[in-house]
Structures are given as structure tokens and as C-alpha cells.
């Protein structure tokens, strides 16, 4: 069992770290204040390959797989978690099109995502609830050869940054009653609605999409009518959860570095506080959590790259890493003492960012439902 990263993966990590450390910090103050994503970085990210990392080369991407994607998102998250938050949803759009789109849809939309012309959106959550997909209210009624969409999607990442959206809407009842549509932004009856004002991951644009008698051609169906639940679940499970987990992993790495630096520099009783056992215990817990989460994340993504079923593993990575990031950030604030609650110190931003990852992309409880089933499956009596 070889746990080492390959030379390619190490170079990838170094390349992303260099880009992230140079380009992102000058944008962060404005992002925290305004909550807006720095769209001028889209093209540079595309040139490096970030926006097209999982998109096949024939559609303008690099096609490097999910372990590579995790490295990229982790390194971006280490500097500013709003970036992987935005990009992981962008990648969800790439994955939905790659996995379920027709050749024409792939040719038309994937290059726009890979080149940074637009951010990607997969709009699943209704105001009626994100965890209850089948209960969604946004509906698409077939009239002649067009679908008429009505409804609202909320908490949609990149809602105002995309020139097309992938939208899941109700076309029937039950598990086969959802369908996935590609909707261009300038389609009459479709528009972005309000922007949300989050307390963390500021700069990852989150907002509403509103549909009012929006006409969508049958050609804009992704897959067949009634396949929407499959599109949503596969995309969320394999690309969304892994993306959120990698975002939280980046935060956790940043938390560890901030805590370690502070513990080594803050002098009390004539020595760095890192010499005190209480602080060492905190650091041991943070360090162990980081390693556990790294293993969970890279194992789940390795399985995805091997085309192995991995929904249990991605669920574990997502719920565990996001909660661990919050826990570690809280410990790091305690290491910082009162400095930890001052806005000049990065650790408070990391705590807020970590908190937002917990419900985003699926709650821990929904993930545990699936994990619990998998855990009990070997013991099930016939």
C-alpha cells in the first residue's frame, strides 16, 4: 500500500500553492467586505487548468482526475476557502455534463466551463429543502415540445456568476419525477434573484435563481426525463461532497499552520506556549484530525479515480472533515486566547469558513443515513 503522492501530484501541489499564495491574498480583504468573487481570476485559473481539471481534454480541460482535483482544492482552501467552495460547484457542472450530457451538450457547454468563460452551477436546493430532493417544488411541465419551469432555487453557489445553469426540477412524482435541465441565463423567465450574505466563505457567491414561466427546449434535458434524481445524486455524491470535503481539508491545514505558528511565537512564562502540555494536547488533536481527514479525502477520491463505488466514503470524508475543521478551528482560537477572536487574526475567518462547510453540500445527518446503511449492511439478516 503506497501512501506517497506521485511526482506529478507533488508538482501539481507546488504549482497550485504558488498560484494561490501569489494571486489570492490581494483579493481577500475585498472578498470579506463585499462577499463578491474576484471574477478577474477566472481566466488565470483557467490558464493554469483549475477550472477544467476534471474535464476531458477534448473539451478544453486537463482530465487529471479526482485525486488531482482534491490537491488543487485543498491548496486553494489553505489560502482562501471561498475559492474551492466556488470551484467545487463549478466542477459539479463539469461532471454532470461529462457523465450525462449528449455530445452536442458537451461540445457546447464544457469548453465554456474549462476556459473560465463562465462559472458552473448545479441548482438543486429548493426553499422547500435541500435534503428532501423528491419533495422539491420547482417544477417543469411539458407543453408541446417545451418545458415550462416555475419555481425558485436557493443557496445556489455561483448563482450570479454563470451564464448557464444546470437545474433539477420536478417533472413527475416519486424517484423518477425529477429531471435535469440546462438553462441559459438569458432565457426569458429565468433570472438570478437575491444574493445571500453568509458569515463565512465570503466571496463564494451564493444566491437565488428564479423561474417564472421559463420555456426550456427538450434538447436542454440532461439525460432522459425522470433521470434527474440520478444526475443530482451522482453529481452531489461524487463531485459535490468530495469538493466540500477538500475545501474543509484546506481550512484544516490552514488552521494547523496558524495554530502552530502562534504556539511557537507567543511567549508566556518565558517560553513559547507550545512548550506547555495543554497546548501540545490541542496541537496533537488538530494534527491527528488533519491526518485522518487527509486519509479519508484522498482514499475516497482514489476510489473515484478507479471507478469504484464510493458514495459511503465520500459521505464519510464530507461530514467528518467539515466537522473536524470546525473543531480544530475552535481549538486554535483557544490556543490564540483573546487574539483568536480579533478580526486582525486569520483564525476567526477560518472558524467562520469551517462552520459554513458543515451544512453546505449536504448535512452530516444525511451523509450518516447512507453511512449507517453501509455499516449495517454486512449484519443484515435475510
Amino acid at each position, binding site marked *: 500500500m503506497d501512501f506517497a503522492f506521485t*511526482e506529478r501530484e507533488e*508538482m*501539481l501541489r*507546488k*504549482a497550485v500553492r504558488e498560484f494561490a499564495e501569489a494571486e489570492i491574498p490581494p483579493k481577500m480583504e475585498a472578498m470579506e467586505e463585499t462577499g463578491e468573487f474576484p471574477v478577474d481570476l477566472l481566466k488565470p485559473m483557467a*490558464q*493554469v487548468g*483549475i477550472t477544467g481539471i476534471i474535464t476531458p481534454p477534448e473539451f478544453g480541460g486537463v482530465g487529471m482526475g479526482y485525486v488531482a482535483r482534491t490537491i488543487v482544492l485543498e491548496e486553494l482552501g489553505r489560502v482562501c476557502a471561498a475559492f474551492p467552495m466556488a470551484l467545487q460547484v463549478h466542477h459539479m457542472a463539469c461532471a454532470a455534463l461529462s457523465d450525462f450530457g449528449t455530445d452536442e451538450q458537451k461540445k457546447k457547454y464544457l469548453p465554456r466551463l474549462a476556459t473560465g468563460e463562465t462559472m458552473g452551477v448545479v441548482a438543486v436546493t429548493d426553499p422547500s429543502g435541500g435534503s428532501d430532493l423528491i419533495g422539491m417544488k420547482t417544477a417543469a411541465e411539458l407543453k408541446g415540445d417545451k418545458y415550462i419551469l416555475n419555481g425558485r432555487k436557493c443557496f445556489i453557489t455561483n448563482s450570479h456568476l454563470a451564464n448557464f445553469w444546470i437545474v433539477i426540477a420536478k417533472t413527475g412524482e416519486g424517484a423518477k419525477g425529477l429531471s435535469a435541465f440546462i438553462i441559459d441565463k438569458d432565457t426569458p423567465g429565468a433570472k438570478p434573484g437575491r444574493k445571500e450574505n453568509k458569515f463565512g466563505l465570503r466571496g463564494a457567491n451564493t444566491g437565488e435563481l428564479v423561474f417564472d414561466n421559463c420555456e426550456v427546449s427538450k434538447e436542454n434535458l440532461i439525460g432522459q426525463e425522470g433521470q434527474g434524481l440520478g444526475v443530482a445524486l451522482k453529481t452531489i455524491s461524487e463531485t459535490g461532497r468530495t469538493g466540500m470535503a477538500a475545501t474543509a481539508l484546506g481550512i484544516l491545514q490552514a488552521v494547523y499552520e496558524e495554530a502552530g505558528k502562534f504556539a511557537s511565537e507567543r511567549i508566556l512564562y518565558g517560553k513559547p506556549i507550545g512548550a506547555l502540555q495543554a497546548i501540545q494536547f490541542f496541537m496533537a488533536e488538530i494534527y491527528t484530525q488533519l491526518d485522518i481527514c487527509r486519509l479519508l479525502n484522498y482514499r475516497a477520491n482514489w476510489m473515484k479515480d478507479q471507478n469504484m463505488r464510493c458514495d459511503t466514503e465520500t459521505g464519510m470524508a464530507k461530514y467528518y472533515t467539515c466537522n473536524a475543521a470546525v473543531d480544530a478551528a475552535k481549538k486554535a482560537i483557544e490556543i490564540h486566547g483573546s487574539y483568536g477572536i480579533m478580526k486582525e487574526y486569520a483564525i476567526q475567518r477560518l472558524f467562520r469558513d469551517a462552520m459554513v462547510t458543515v451544512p453546505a453540500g449536504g448535512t452530516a445527518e444525511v451523509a450518516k443515513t447512507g453511512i449507517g446503511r453501509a455499516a449495517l449492511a454486512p449484519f443484515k439478516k435475510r
Partner: protein
Amino acid sequence: MNRIIVCVKPVPDPKQWDKVSMDPETKTLKREGIPNIMNPLDKHALEAALALRESHGGEVVLLSMAPPFAKTTIREGLAMGADRAVLLSDRVFAGSDSLATSEILAAGCRWIGDFDIVLCGNLSIDGSTAQICSQLAEMLDLPNVMHVTGLEGSAGGNLVITQKIENGYVRLASGFPVVLSVRKELNKPRYISFAGILAAESKEITMLSNKDLCVNPEHVGLAGSPTKMAGLEVRKFERKKERLEGTVDDIVEKLVEKIYQCGVIEC
């Protein structure tokens, strides 16, 4: 344009300078366990080469004198876009000062052959001698320009060079071949792309030892280095602290006087 050689050097990551120490016997730096990066100014040199290739064609070849671990740094240069690389590596090169290094690099340039430009960074952040470029040019018997801040080809086939001097800039025209060293103001190096990383895996790195280069053994390594390292110390700078008392007007007046006394502003 036919061929541009870019000299690149792996240097210890400056973020970990505090872990670098000196071998008390050989007076050389102990770099084991410290990650390396490409010398930052060499990246600017490489970017210039890639830009010239994009407008005038030709081949960009990386040249480095370093131990085998330098392959990682060289791959980064290939990932940036260089076509191939030559690594000059031999135990007998260890401890070479800038003169010995220049002679080895000159041999490497002759081995590659048929080049139009040799590009270097002005200096490396570890040794900071800034001597390689001019010594290399001398050994190759070629013209040399340092402190290059502008570089472009002209319609007449010459190279138009902007050189920073003490009180301004000089504009020069040069034929080929020529040896140049660049400042960071020249350009902003491109980031390594993921496609570049994949492409770099199939690009050639040729390793040459002194058996291939045939440099006089008395001119290489510690024995061939007239410059001897005497010592290495870390300077500590303590901040001077002084509290100014009085009214706001008093403090402002005293502060202005201090600023003049320190030479921050000249009268």
C-alpha cells in the same frame, strides 16, 4: 531564432532559510532536507526565453549544474514550457565557486551547441555573487549584458535590450549569440499549468558528467575554486525603540527631526 539556453539553479526555499547551516569543515551549505525551488530570477529568464520562442520560434533548452535532485526543479521548468533540459551532474563538481561553475556551464553550452542566446537570472538567492553571467560570457568569448529589464526582437533581426544602470536605462542592439542576465522587472513569469505538468513528463532531461564535458579536473570543485567560503552567520537586527513625549505638536516636530537624522528624507 534557433536555440535559447536558459541557466537554472535549484536553491533552498527561502521560507526555510532558518534551517540552512554550514559544514564547518568544507564551509559549504548543508541543504539536506530543505526543499528547493527554482532560483526566482531564473524563472524570469525562462519566461523571457518562452516569450521569444513564441514570437520568433526556436527551441528553449534548460541548462543546470547541480546534483541529481535538481531534476525536480528542472521538470518545473519543462512544465513552464521549455523543450528539453541538460543537467550537468558529477561529484567532482561539488563545492565549485562561481568561476568553476561558469567553466562547467560553458562546457555545457558548447555541448548543446548552435545557440543564439544564453539567458540567466542576475543572481541566485543563495550565493548572490551575480558573477556567473559575465564569467560564462567570458569563457564562451561572447558579448554580455547584465541587468536586462527589456528584451525584444527587432525587424532587422537584432535583439533590442533595455539595461538598467545606476541612474537610468540604456537601450542596446545586439546580434547573436549573446549572454544576458535579467532582472525581475523584465516580466512576470507564467504559472506552471497542469497541461504543462503532463507534457513535461515526456520531455528529455539529458544528464552529463565530466566524462562527457571533459572540463579540466583542476578547474572544478573545491580544488578548482579560488573563492573560499570563510563563514556563515545570521545577522540579527534589533529594532531601535524610542518613545517621544510631549504634546502632539512637540512629538511631530521631534519625529520629523528624527526622520531627517536617520536619512530617510534628505534636506
